[in-house]
């Protein structure tokens, strides 16, 4: 689910001829106007000036178009010099037809460019961890997120997000949304998709109220859960209550964590093919990941709303990589291991009158069931043992106005593979939205886990920049 729809970037460019003509007439008339206007009140003068300006602009355009008509009459076969406007109008025709032919190559033009966005996120992270050299007490740059979105045709939008860092560029998301022409409010998504799970998983990092996604989400889903496949979304009303649901299927449960702190910190694209791996053999239906979500938003008066949701991810029996130590770093594929993840989420929002301030209280709880492998076998197989873990978070956020907000989050979860190990953490964030495109955040946090790491605290200073005009679409 995409959380931001980018503003339309299409703009008609004025042809040089009409611009020059405009400019000429403008200068001439402005000079005349300046002579005429003396001793009038300032307001009237400005208004008159504006009327005059508008007249000039339209006269200029009309003159330019008349010139084009004359030009075309004189040489009907040749394209006029100032052909921008006409070409613009014909653009759809020129670009229509088949996608490619054997004797043609595709040449892209700037016309109908998609909306482009770029998000830069720099974090200075300090932590009291003893082993912080690699990750903390230094500047950390999240991979720059490059977003593209645009309509392909009357039926389909294409959305892509690339993550670029000094090691290269990876495809984070890239999918088509078939949103027009299907019955009712059905939409079909296909490609590299964010999995519709809970409220926060599918969000982009720059849309969060804290620097990182909750550690619980990082532990159980690696942050943002992704898959390559298909998903069907649909929403409808039950009385006055809107309900949305989705089901999806994909190759495997992939993840894309760009976490600074938390269980997935330092890891990036999970599920990358391991080198020297044993072949997996044939793919069966069990290897696929199946997803589902249903959610509803209920208005509690004019200023309050409550969203409730429930999601599930099911992998009946996927093969996984296991690394055998000697010889170093060789991976073998396991037999089928099942995994189920179920989550519930609730978010209550109260908006102040005037809608500049808002209070949000929200949380998600997740249950994970994993089939454990017997790694002593030459090819690891399901050992017959399953681990059941659960965890979640609760957060509160208050936005004083458009610019300032504070948030606090507490979480607790059991490790996905060993429920006897519990992880507890908290975060507090102060966010300053300097404007729509520029944000600074200070965040403090602490972690206490049952594994070998001693309790530690951390502090982060984050500066996020968004390039590209955008609007905020509904994310629910």
């Amino acid at each position, binding site marked *: 689910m995409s959380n931001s*729809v980018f503003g339309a970037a299409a703009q008609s460019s004025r042809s040089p001829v009409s611009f020059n003509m405009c400019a000429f007439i403008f200068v001439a008339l402005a000079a005349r106007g300046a002579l005429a206007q003396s001793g009038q009140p300032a*307001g009237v003068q400005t208004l008159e000036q*504006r009327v005059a300006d508008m007249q000039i602009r339209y006269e200029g355009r009309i003159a330019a178009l008349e010139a084009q008509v004359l030009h075309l009459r004189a040489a009907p076969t040749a394209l006029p010099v100032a052909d921008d406007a006409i070409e613009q109008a014909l653009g759809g025709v020129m670009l229509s037809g088949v996608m490619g032919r054997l004797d043609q190559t595709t040449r892209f033009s700037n016309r109908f460019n998609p909306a482009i966005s770029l998000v830069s996120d720099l974090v200075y992270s300090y932590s009291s961890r003893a082993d912080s050299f690699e990750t903390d007490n230094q500047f950390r740059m999240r991979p720059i997120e490059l977003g593209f979105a645009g309509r392909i045709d009357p039926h389909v939008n294409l959305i892509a997000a690339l993550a670029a860092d000094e090691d290269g560029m990876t495809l984070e998301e890239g999918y088509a949304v078939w*949103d*027009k022409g299907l019955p009712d*409010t059905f939409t079909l998504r296909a490609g590299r998709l964010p999995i519709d799970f809970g409220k926060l998983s599918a969000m982009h990092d720059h849309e969060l109220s804290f620097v990182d996604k909750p550690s619980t989400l990082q532990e159980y889903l690696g942050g943002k859960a992704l898959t390559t496949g298909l998903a069907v979304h649909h*929403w409808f*009303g039950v009385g*006055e*209550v*809107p309900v*949305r649901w989705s089901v999806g299927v994909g190759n495997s449960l992939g993840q894309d964590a760009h976490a600074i702190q938390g269980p997935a910190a330092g890891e990036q694209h999970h599920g990358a093919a391991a080198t020297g791996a044993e072949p997996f053999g044939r793919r069966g239906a069990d290897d696929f990941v199946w997803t589902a979500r249903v959610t*509803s*938003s209920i*208005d509690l008066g*004019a200023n309050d*709303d409550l*969203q409730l949701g429930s999601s599930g991810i099911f992998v009946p029996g996927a093969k996984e990589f296991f690394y055998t130590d000697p010889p170093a770093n060789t991976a073998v594929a396991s037999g089928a291991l099942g995994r189920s993840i179920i989550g519930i989420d609730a978010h209550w*929002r109260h*908006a*102040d*009158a*005037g*809608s*500049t301030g*808002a209070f949000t209280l929200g949380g998600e709880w997740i249950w994970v069931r994993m089939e454990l492998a017997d790694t002593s076998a030459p090819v690891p197989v399901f050992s017959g043992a399953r681990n059941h873990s659960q965890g979640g978070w609760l957060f509160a956020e208050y936005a004083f*106005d*458009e*610019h300032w907000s504070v948030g606090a989050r507490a979480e607790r979860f059991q490790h996905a593979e060993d429920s006897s190990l519990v992880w507890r953490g908290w975060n507090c964030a102060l966010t300053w939205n300097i*404007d*729509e*495109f520029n944000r600074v955040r200070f965040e403090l946090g602490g972690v206490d886990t049952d594994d070998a790491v001693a309790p530690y605290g951390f502090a982060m200073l984050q500066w996020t920049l968004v390039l590209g005009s955008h*609007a*905020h*679409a*509904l994310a*629910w």
Partner: protein
Amino acid sequence: MYKLIPLLLLTLAPLHAQLSVLCTTRDLADIASRIGGNAVRVEAMATGAQDPHRILAKPSGLLKLRRADVLIEMGLDLEHAWLPALLENAANERIAPGQPGFINASDGITPLEVPTTVDRSRGTDVHPRGNPHYNLDPEGGRTIARNIAKGLALVKPELKATLDANLRSFEADLDAKLKEWAPHFARLKGAKFVVRHGWFPYLAQRAGFTVIADLEPMAGLEPSPAHVAAVMDLIRREKPAALLVPPWKQDGITKRVASETGVRVLALPVGCTNDAPYATWLSWMDHLISALAAAVPEPAK
């Protein structure tokens, strides 16, 4: 079975064929219910007690848009931050822009304060197409009413006679009010006001008062301390009749300006709300214009 229900409703439709009209603001809803009368069922997505630039997009809004036969917007990009995205998701062809069911109430308005350039480096301007607050002007109400009558008649031509009659009745009420307001306008002529956001250029033009300063250096931008200081200097020098703020802007800045300069603060809804005395567009205008006039000191004899 499920598929039969809409069919069943369709056969019943001619009996109770009320048009479902969704309006972005209460002003539009009030005028639409005057014009549409019994033929329409009107709902508003926001009231004058809420900032119309920043209505929160909610899934319930999606549902309302999905079910509406007609959508009426203020236009001039007033709703640009939240409506287009909702409209796209609602996938309701009846009210898609360009369809008869989509009524832009600002048709024919000559926008004031059209920016000559829109440039990010100057900050976020929430009025990229000029000032959209023409609902704070008696003649703006007339334009709204006429556009609604015209628009609804396109959706349902058989209502044209009723719509025209209702429009005439609304305009008669408005003309009567304009006569009542004439002394207020006379009092307001030449008066000076300071504002917080550009709510008033249309009314100022109509009534002949002057907005000498805006606490917002640019539409939608919070003032810097230097800007506040400059406005306070101007207030001390020019002694405006009042500082006009919307109800949700009675904050620290407003209070500080009031306490340090002694200027009177008038916090008035910028559209009609759900509650008396602002429950209809005409009654709200009545209160707004009287309150402004009352703030102007009696001319010296």
